[in-house]
């Protein structure tokens, strides 16, 4: 069923999941503090948004460490936006694809290192897991009111959807005639694409969503057919479109709309196809990390990102071009609004999350390791 849906994330479910947490030495937030935190101060105004963080203290802290799944230019872009508004806060980032990124922060925390202020992931499954492990700081932003419940963590205050990355199919218009071009998700399985089709690596959140949703629609055999095409996998959408525009690949099975926009503007001969079943989408989730070295700065960032200002930045920066889910968000630079697209999400986030191990095994063995 391809609809914009949010799973039945009841509090009961979350708590049930929480009891099965792995015994890692997280000296995270103790349960009683959970409710006490966050709503203690009254929001202040800074620039054109509100925040519960102590801005002066944040500037005193002077630094923000950001872990992000985005490619280099995108991550740098996000930091640029924040730094422009708060020049006293020096930003630094680590980027890695979601799977690798999550793995990194987990092993660091397991070794007793707590160096991260904010983390952005392109897959909601690790966000759930991190929440369970007490990795997120519980901080309710005053900007939360501009978001639907579906786009916030349950309960609010752990993470939020800073944007949506929808993906369809893209092809090189010089190599592929319009008549041969794929029209829907089933068309990419055509044997003519063998050795000439690209996708993303298993650490990618979006790739996991695509695997899960298309499997639900077309059955288990879909990806087995796909494997026969010997696809090439890459870390970032920029790489995918780089190769596509030069003709090194003919089509990409996971053409992200933001990248398509960017490359088209550079004059690349690429075309985008929005399959009738919908555009595979993953939420991009941002949350402040617990035991952050710069707690006020991290809270400030969350507010900034949630604000209209921050969302405008996320939407309009050419390296990002995210679709915003803020209720009062303007249209994207191309004039299109996120709601104009038919988006494909997992209907049951819990079931989705539980499939993670299966996906990883299948996808990695498809790619040879």
């Amino acid at each position, binding site marked *: 069923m391809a609809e914009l849906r949010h799973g039945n994330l009841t509090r009961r479910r979350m708590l049930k999941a929480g009891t099965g947490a792995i015994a890692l030495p997280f000296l995270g937030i103790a349960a009683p503090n959970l409710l006490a935190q966050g709503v203690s101060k009254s929001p202040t105004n800074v620039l054109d948004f509100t925040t519960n963080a102590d801005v002066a203290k944040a500037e005193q802290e002077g630094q923000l460490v950001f872990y992000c799944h985005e490619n280099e230019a995108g991550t740098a872009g996000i930091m640029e936006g924040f730094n422009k508004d708060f020049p006293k806060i020096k930003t630094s980032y680590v980027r890695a694809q979601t799977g690798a990124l999550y*793995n990194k922060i987990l092993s660091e925390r397991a070794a007793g290192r707590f160096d991260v202020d904010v983390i952005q992931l392109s897959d909601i499954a690790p966000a759930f897991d991190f929440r369970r492990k007490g990795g997120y700081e519980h901080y309710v932003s005053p900007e939360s009111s501009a978001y639907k419940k579906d786009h916030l963590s349950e309960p609010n205050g752990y993470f939020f959807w800073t944007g949506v990355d929808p993906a369809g199919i893209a092809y090189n218009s010089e190599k592929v005639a319009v008549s041969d071009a794929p029209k829907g998700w089933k068309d990419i399985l055509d044997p003519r694409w063998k050795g000439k089709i690209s996708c993303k690596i298993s650490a990618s959140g979006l790739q996991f969503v695509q695997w899960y949703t298309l499997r639900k629609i077309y059955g288990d055999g879909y990806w087995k057919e796909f494997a026969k095409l010997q696809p090439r996998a890459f870390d970032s959408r920029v790489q995918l479109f780089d190769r596509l525009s030069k003709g090194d690949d003919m089509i990409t099975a996971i053409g992200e709309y933001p990248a398509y926009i960017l490359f088209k503007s550079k004059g690349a001969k690429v075309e985008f196809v929005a399959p009738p079943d919908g555009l595979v989408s993953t939420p991009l989730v941002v949350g402040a990390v617990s035991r952050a070295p710069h707690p006020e700065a991290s809270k400030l960032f969350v507010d900034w990102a949630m604000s209209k200002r921050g969302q405008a930045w996320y939407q309009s920066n050419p390296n990002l071009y995210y679709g915003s889910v803020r209720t009062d968000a303007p249209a994207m630079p191309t004039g299109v609004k996120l709601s104009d697209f038919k988006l494909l999400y997992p209907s049951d986030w819990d079931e989705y999350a539980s499939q993670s191990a299966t996906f990883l095994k299948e996808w990695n063995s498809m790619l040879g390791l």
Partner: protein
Amino acid sequence: MGSWFSAQKVAGYGVAAIAAVLVLYPVYFLLQAAFDVGDPQIRPPTAYGLDNFSSLLQYPQIMLNTLMVSLAATVMALMFGSLMAWILTRTNVPGRRLFEQLMAVPYYLTPLLGALAWSLLGQPESGFINGIWRAFGGEGHLIDINTPYGIAWVMALFEGSVAFVMIAALMKSMDPSLEEASQVIGASRIRTIMQITLPLVTPGILGAAIFVFAEMLGSFAVALVLGLPTRYYVITTAIYQMIQQYPPKIQVAAAMGASLFAVMWAMLYAYRRVVMSGSYVTITGKAFRPRLLDVGRLRYVLLSICLLYLFVAVILPLGTLFFASLQKIAVVFPTAENFTLDNFRTAMAMNAVRSALSNSLLLAFGTATIGIVLMGLLAWLIYRSRLPGSGLIEYIVMFPQAVPRLVFAFGLMWAWVVFPIPIYATLWLLLIAYLTVFLPLGVRTIAGVILQIDKSLEECAQMCGASWAFRARTVTIPLLRPGLVAAWLLLFIASVRELGASILLMGPHSKVITPSIVESWFGTSSELTAALALIQTLVVALAIIVLVVVTRRVGALSVD
């Protein structure tokens, strides 16, 4: 017997202890991870076993790939190396000395840059060479750089210069009278070459072959750029992939690394046996002046071969990168509106340029300076002092030679992440890593310098009554100075071009050049990466030129 706490012994054993910790501590953790068959999240390991090694049997293709690529690269490197060595040391080709210096340039450019450039040149669809081929009416593509032979080609071009250096040294140390005796008897030039020169050179070439093969087994950068897109894995890139992917297969990666280590160790052992000198130092004994072969007209043919090599290994790659960096989307026949300076503008603003450059230069300075003190003391300890245990120390110091940098970094990552002092993900950790992996290089270079100094110069100072410290200050170090300066430069350059270790140990505040280029390659457009790489190369080249000029003054000494 003598005083126990002499300065000599303290310095000697102190530095030996440091070296032992640097080298063995990460290796221990590597092996621990390789034998860990328990839950990977739990440390220390709960169970030990051989399962990880047996799971390696699932990847026969990777082993095969590695062998194939390394073999092909070794053969090619030996061919280029021997040809160029012969041309530059035995014939009267004009500009010999200049070319000999230039042979080192591909090494300085780094195999990564070479791989980037050749990727732009040789991709079957978008590659420039193939574009030109098609423009001339060719079908399909002329070369495909993403194949094992393509990878081997680039490896040989950029990592093969060690073959040249070894074979050239070999040819220079040959006694010319051996060939002259053959010619006097009346043998033709060809006959002399086939029956005298070649057999004499063969053991040395064999030794070089083994050494180069071991190096190629551990090669990383080229396979990373050219092999990964087509899922053509070799052991090093497979290890990298297994660590980076989600979920990571740490234990299998460790087992793979340990296996590679064992193989390389065996190869280097074989190398030592073949060379039979028992030491990694090529002792320059009497340097003969080999009689040059007058090749007459052939001179110009040989000259063009040298120029061709230079073109293919230096000019073409640099030119390609420059050409690509100026375009929005790099093609071989761009239209006017495809040109832009945006890539350079963006690159200058990127963290990778700003902080990575300054980090790398700072780190290189530190590594070189601390390095020559540490390695100088070690070289003296191993080759000059007569303290017991120096043989063992030599083995330990040469250990990292047998371990690919990436594998070593793996152990380092594992080892230092639990260290109480928080150096993880800082430049300090990179410094430690560099000092460790450069031990063989630094010690070997300085040892060569030390061994050239006649022992009697130091003994005489002893007989004049000078204590060890006084001797070191007034005789040993002044004599070593030019060599130490050269070693400093070598360490500096090795440090800025390092990839294998840095790529795993880099943190948000400790970005360095070469891994940041890789990050850019996998995360941004190839044009931006080209611009980035060029900027960094230029800055490093400038830094090196400045240093060479400065050190020429410091190291100048009228010593016979």
